[in-house]
Structure formats: C-alpha cells, structure tokens
C-alpha cells in the first residue's frame, strides 16, 4: 500500500502546480517517464489548473455557506495551499506524474527547475509539503547526483528539471529513457498529446490501476443503480482510459474516454435516441436524460442491487405494487420503450399565495407503445394512487386532493390538486404539488405540476435556447445557472432558516453568507454532462461554462 501521505502528495501534485512560463528544454516532461506505468498525467499549464480550482465559483459559493470549503478554515485546504506555495518554484512549466500500482505502488514526478534550486531544495520542500518535516538530511551520491531522503524518495536534477521517484529502481528507469523506451513515445500518448489541453492523462492498462483502488460503497438503492451503474459497467469493461481537461476561463471541462472491448449487449442501458421527449423552454432549469430499458431494469432489479439494498427494494416493490393495485407493474413497464427524460422548470403557482419553499416543478417522460385499454388501466392506477394519498391523509385530518381533467389540443390531462388548507398560515399549498399525467402521441408524461405539463404540451418540439443540447443522444443532462439562481433567490427565507439552524448563524450573518454565495455563483453559466458510447469507446464529458466577463 502506498503510504497515505504519498497518496495525498500525488493529489497535491495534480492540483497544486501552477506557473505558465516555459523555461525548460524542448523535451516534454512525460518523455522522462518510463513506458510501463499504469498511469501518466501531464499538467501542461499547471497554473491554469490551480487557478481554475482555487477560484472556482462553486468553491467560493461553498466557502460562503460552509467553512469546510473555506481555504482559511479547512485544515486540509490550508495544507493544500501551503504545499502549493512550497512547491510553486518547481511548477512554472509542464509537469508529469507517473504512477505504478503493482505490489508496492510507486510514484514518479518530473518538474521544472527554472531557478536552478536543485534536487536538495526540492526534496526539502517536498518533505515539508507532505508534512514530513522531521525527515533527516538528504544523502547524496556524488557520482550521479542522486539525492535520497529517507521516507520520502529520491530526486536528481537533469536538463533543467527535477526528476523524483519514491523508489530507486523507478528513478533509474527515468534516467535511462533512451535505452528503455519513454512513455511519451507510446502511440496512444502521442495521439493524446496532439490535443491542446491543460491536463491530460493516460492509463494504458486500467485493471491493475483499479485493482486496489477503493471504489467506495456501491450504490445501495435502486435510483443509485439506475444512475450510476452504466458508469460502473463502462469502467469494468474498460481496458484503458484517457482523460483530458481544459481549464481556460469561459469553459472548463473534463473528458474521460474509456476504451473497452466491444460493447457487451447493452441489456438495460441503451444508446442512440432520436428526438427529445420534453422540449425545453424559457422556464427550464435543467434536464436529465437516461437511455435505459426500464422494463428490463425492473425485471433484473434484485440482481442489480447489492445485497444490502434488497431489503429496502422488497419494501419498495410492495409500495409501488400497492399504488398500481389492479394493474401489473411489469406490464406497465413492458409498455415503455427505452429512454427516459426528466425536465426541471420554474414552478407556476396556481394560488395567489405562494408556498414558503418554492420547489421547482419537474416532469418525467417515457416513450410508450401501450394500447387504449392499457392506457386506461394506467390512468386508473394514477387515480388509485391519488385515492391512496387521500385515504391516508383523511385519517390524519389532512386536506384531500381533488381530481380533474384538462385538455391541450387533443391531449387529455389527468391532474389532482390539494384543496386549500383552511388553517391559519396554511393556505398555501405545502409543496404546490398538482400531480398530472397525460398520454401525448407516443409519449407518456408524468409531472409534479399540471401547469408544467400544459406548458410542455404547448411547446413546439424544438424551441427554447437549448434545443440543440436537448437533442443529443446518450445519457446526459445540464443545469442552467441563471434560472437556478433565481430560484435560490426566491427561496431566500427558507435558505436563511436552514443556515441559522445548521450553522448557528445569526440572521444577518446568514443573509450575508447567502449574498456572498449568490454573488460567487453568478459567475457560473451552466453545468452539463453527457455519456456517449461509440463502438469500443465510452465517452464521459463534464463541463462548466463560466461567464468570462465577471
């Protein structure tokens, strides 16, 4: 096992280095790494990476709301910044990190040394950065100039750079690239290196790298599996991985490509869909699309969910079956074709009094091939569900829900709304929920709000500012910052309440924290992610759009 400190160090190296001045020889940093590593990372412009991280609006917003994200409060972040300050002189040009995860994990670094500080200065600073201040004096070999610091590693100065490795054989390999072959000469690296990005990484042989990595707990619930299982499956099947990162202002993104064997039969995950089921509009906050075959997923649910989740799953199945009493839930799912979409929008309030907590409305759509009798049974199940809510609520003296129908063109909407609560202060609907459903052509749409459903049905299928993104196939989703911020502003009071309770802030302190967080987040324009599969390659993209003017 790699010592925890070393792991931290590896993370530091990835995140911390900054600079921007090319001062070394033309030779690339990665060319100093041997070709049999499990992972090589090149930070072409470490400064951009650090700046992007250090000044990220989400980090700033997080810091305003919670000291755990604050560099001056959080001990880990403080440590990180200190390490960065210590090692900054060596990070003024590209750096390379190599990692080998065999019997003993090994770490290699290639850094610049434009100021000529030398290997000893580096080792001392590195030891301090990983908090091994008590390390003895580095011992050197006068012949080859290699310095060793016990418990830290070996380093040597070469061609204006510092080469470092945790183990002597690894450092010797780094010094003999010409004889043994360099990582930079690998064909797949050469291909990767042509793209102008700030961060690139290649794991040519993924299984050993992941062998000891603790992937954390597998998702324990159905929804976790539904969302994350494709990623786990991609990773499981992958032979190698490539990562590219951009950290320029305006656009930041990570792109991970997993190259696997030929795609296994996709079972319940699907790819390649034509058009969007839920067109977006000016009120849209975000959306999510998942290409899954839900019928297949449901059929196999007990094998897909780890043992720990089965108990809950059995209970969930009971619950859902109660809701669908009189109709087989499997049959419902069998009437659905692969592909699910969720859209989140600003809510519209049907009463003059708005609720305290203004949750957004959401809608869920499937493509279906149900015949009329089946559709009617589904409608009946919707009404049963409302009936169950009413029966339960009635026992507890709660307001009942009233069912009604509405029409948009040819489409009939089934909906329900709570009767207003006559009690003082409770007139506002608690969650402004007006559950609704409709069959529109081959679409089955369920929504938390009747108004949203009507809105969707009235929308031309390709309208709205993000129509292009709507149409992309595969898994994906986005959140738009501007309307989301508006929603946060509208919920200022409940947010302030929870800051007071959860952080022990005074009312004015809570207000100030919220303002600071909102100001920081206003630099953000949006976040999106996608997963596509193309033959042997699964491609995951994460991207932030920032407002360069702010």
């Amino acid at each position: 096992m790699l010592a925890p400190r070393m792991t931290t160090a590896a993370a530091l190296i990835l995140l911390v280095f900054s600079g921007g001045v090319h001062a070394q020889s033309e030779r690339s940093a990665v060319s100093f790494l041997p070709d049999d590593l499990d992972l090589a990372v090149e930070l072409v412009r470490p400064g951009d990476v650090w700046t992007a991280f250090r000044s990220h609006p989400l980090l700033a917003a997080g810091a305003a709301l919670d000291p755990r994200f604050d560099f001056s409060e959080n001990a880990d972040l403080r440590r990180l910044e200190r390490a960065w300050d210590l090692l900054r002189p060596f990070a003024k040009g590209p750096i390379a990190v190599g990692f080998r995860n065999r019997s003993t994990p090994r770490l290699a670094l290639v850094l610049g040394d434009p100021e000529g500080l030398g290997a000893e200065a580096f080792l001392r600073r590195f030891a301090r950065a990983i908090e091994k201040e008590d390390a003895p004096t580095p011992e050197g070999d006068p012949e080859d100039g290699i310095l060793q610091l016990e418990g830290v590693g070996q380093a040597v100065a070469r061609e204006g750079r510092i080469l470092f490795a945790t183990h002597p054989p690894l450092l010797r390999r780094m010094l003999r690239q010409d004889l043994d072959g360099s990582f930079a000469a690998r064909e797949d690296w050469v291909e990767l290196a042509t793209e102008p990005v700030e961060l690139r990484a290649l794991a040519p042989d993924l299984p050993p790298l992941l062998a000891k990595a603790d992937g954390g707990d597998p998702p324990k619930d159905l929804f976790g599996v539904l969302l994350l299982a494709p990623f786990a499956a991609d990773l499981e099947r992958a032979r190698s991985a490539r990562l590219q990162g951009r950290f320029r202002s305006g656009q930041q993104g990570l792109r991970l490509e997993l190259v696997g064997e030929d795609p296994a039969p996709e079972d319940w995950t699907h790819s390649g869909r034509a058009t969007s089921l839920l067109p977006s509009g000016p009120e849209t906050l975000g959306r999510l699309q998942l290409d899954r075959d839900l019928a297949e997923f449901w059929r196999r649910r007990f094998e897909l969910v780890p043992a720990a989740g089965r108990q809950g799953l059995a209970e969930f199945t009971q619950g859902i079956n109660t809701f669908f009493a009189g109709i087989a839930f499997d049959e419902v799912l069998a009437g659905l074709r692969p592909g699910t979409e969720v859209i989140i929008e600003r809510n519209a309030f049907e009463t003059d009094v708005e609720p305290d907590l203004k949750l957004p409305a959401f809608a869920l759509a499937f493509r279906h091939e149900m015949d009329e009798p089946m559709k009617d049974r589904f409608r009946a199940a919707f009404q049963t569900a409302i009936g169950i809510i009413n029966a339960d609520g009635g026992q507890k003296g709660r307001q009942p829900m009233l069912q009604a129908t509405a029409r948009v063109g040819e489409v009939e909407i089934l909906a329900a709304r709570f009767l207003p609560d006559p009690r003082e202060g409770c007139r506002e609907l608690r969650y402004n929920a007006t559950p609704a459903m409709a069959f529109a052509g081959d679409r089955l749409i369920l929504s938390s709000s009747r108004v949203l459903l009507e809105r969707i049905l009235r929308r031309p299928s390709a309208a709205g500012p993000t129509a292009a993104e709507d149409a992309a196939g595969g898994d994906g989703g986005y959140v738009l910052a501007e309307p989301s911020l508006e929603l946060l502003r509208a919920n200022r009071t409940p947010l302030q309440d929870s800051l007071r309770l959860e952080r022990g802030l005074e009312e004015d302190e809570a207000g100030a924290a919220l303002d600071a967080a909102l100001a920081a987040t206003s630099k953000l324009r949006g976040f999106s992610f996608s997963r596509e599969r193309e033959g042997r390659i699964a491609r995951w993209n994460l991207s932030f759009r920032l407002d360069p003017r702010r």
Partner: protein
Amino acid sequence: MQRRRFLGGLAAGALAARGPWPVLDLAGAPEDAERALVLVELDGGNDALGTLVPREDDAYFRARPKLALAKDATIRVDDALGLHPALAALAPHAAEGRLAAFCGVGFPESDRSHFRAMDVWHSGVPDREETRSGWIGRAVRRAERGEGGTPPEALFALAPGRAPLVLAGAARSVTAIRSLGDLELRGGEEQAKAVARGLRRSRGKDSPRLEEVRRRAEHALAFGRRLDAAAKAAPAETRRYPDSPFAAQLALAGSLIAGGFRRSVHHVRLGGFDTHVRQDETHPATLRVLAEGLDAFLAHLGRQKREKDVLVLVFSEFGRRVAENGGRGTDHGSAGLALLLGEGLRPGRHGASYDLETLERGDLRALLDWRDLQDRLLSEWMGWAPERPLRDGLALLAK
C-alpha cells in the same frame, strides 16, 4: 374432533408430564446463568404458510391458487412441512437438527392492527393495553428482585427505530446500540482520564443523589470498556455476514455474545413482511435476507464455540390470512409461526401442523398460546420465574 386431531399430533407425553419442556434438549447446554436469548422480529406480519409450507395439504393449494409453492420446490422438514426455497440457507440447520417449529401460535383474542398486535406480543398481556413493560423485562425484574434465576448482564436492543417494548420493565436499562463503538468516548484516552478524575473527585461527597450519579458513571465507564474488550476479543465479523442491515444487527449480537456478554438478551428486527400484494416477488427476497443472516449468525457462534449457549426465537406480530387476496398477496391474519434455532433443541415440528380445515374469520386457529411459549423460554431456557404457572406441555388454547 379437532381437539383429538390436535392431540394426536403432539409429541408423546407432552401434555402429561410435569417434567422438562420436551422442546429443549439441554444435555450439552451450559448452566442457565450462561445462556443468551436472541429475539428476531419479523416486522409487518409474516406469512406462516409461505414460510413453513404445508406442502401436502390440499386446502393450502385451494386457498393459494396463485401463491402456493409446488410440493418439490420446498425444502423438506417433515412429511407435512417444507421451508420456502428462499430459506435455503437454513436447510443445513434444519437437516442437522437446529431448527424447531410451532405452527399456529397466537393469542386468545387477536387484533389485526399492527400496532396493537405488536404491543400484545411484546407485552405478553393480551387482555389489556400494556405499553410500559414487556415479558422479558418483567422476568428480568423478577430475577433482579431475587424471585428466581440470574439476571442478565445486559439487554441489547440492536435494531434501529422504535425501542422494543419486550425488553422494558427491568431495573437495569436496555442498551440500545448500533455498533460496538457506540459507547466509545469521543475524546479517547484523554477524555477517559477526565471522566476517571471526575469519578475520583466526586467520591465521598455528602450527597446521595451525586453518589447515585457517580455509581452510574462508573458503571458506564466499565460497560464501555467491556464493549471495547468485546470488540477486541471478538473482532467484528461483519465481513463474514451478508451485506444487509439485518445481518449487521446479528453480527453485532454475535460479537457481543462471543466477546463476553454470555448472559444476555438481544432484540433484532427485519422489516418488509406486510405483503398485501405481489407476495411472490417480495416475500422470497425478504426471507432470503432472513435466512442468510441467521445462517451467518449460527456459523459465527460455531466458530466462537458459543453455539450451545444461544437460542434464537423468530416471531412476528401476527400471521397472515389463509386465503390469498386478488393482488397475489395476503392480508393481516392472526395466529402465526414461531421458529426456534439453536443446538439445545429437539428439532422439527412441535405440536400439530396447521389446521386449514377449521379457520376463524379466515385465519389460522391458534393451537398454542404465545404466553405459554414465552413462559417456557423464560423458565426452561433462561431459568427465570415464568409469568404464570407453567401449563403442561403445549397447551391448546381454551376455546
């Protein structure tokens, strides 16, 4: 007529003798002062017929046209009964004589409400509302007062959620924990020193109330150390248990027993038995969690050489209706199933099998009063004074 049939099914002599309870075989068991009892509650009302299946009874197939299991699908227990195949993990225990079953255990007046039925089972008092003490708690109280038997070292409530009423009523408190670390001092050794210093300093102060607090704090510190020692003596074996919250409760019980709490009572709980619809989908999954958890627990005790010290009682607040409903499920019933697991047993069915010919309101008739079973466990296994005079053998409910 029915009565005769019932009597015919009884183990020979069970009704006649004043002698020891024929269900237990205490030949290899330790002194009763070293025995532990584990209560496994199946929350929601477990379907007896779908757990221990009357595989040869035509009435069963008539009552359960959709849910009935094929004869050879079940795991044979005897000529009449078979375990649900999802209980496969219990099959070796049944085969090797560690499983005893009672079909049709209930209270004279059943209530189909979960809450009421649960209160009745836990309190052991069916004829009035009793929400303050349970049958174990009261028995421990009697032992504490010197009215028979050795009190337990601890009563453990290991399931999350509501506190089990069954343990309430003793002078000693119920220890509700989720892990061996629950009584750990957050501040470690330094805090332990501070606590010890406080204990030392408050000694000899002229205040009975403070003396009482000091005594309890001393006990807490010692109890925490015992848990700590238990954790060290019997390292958590969670890895050898299946990955379920239920198994985690049993793993904790196993560690506590193996780690030194030999004389103790444990309560664990598994939910999901309220199978009104699609019982054929959900019940097997839940039974599997039950069986795999119990199997791992018994194996754990075996590795720790504690298998003879522990008896496990599996129960539910009520059984379910005999006839299935329209949704491939079953509704709340009354009499249900009791299972005992452990080494010190005479295995197999005790008493009659289900009587599916004479139902009450569509429910199984109670052939055995829960209170008689509870009292037998108290007196014969734990060595405590029973609540009522022991009734001979497996007494039929007065009807």
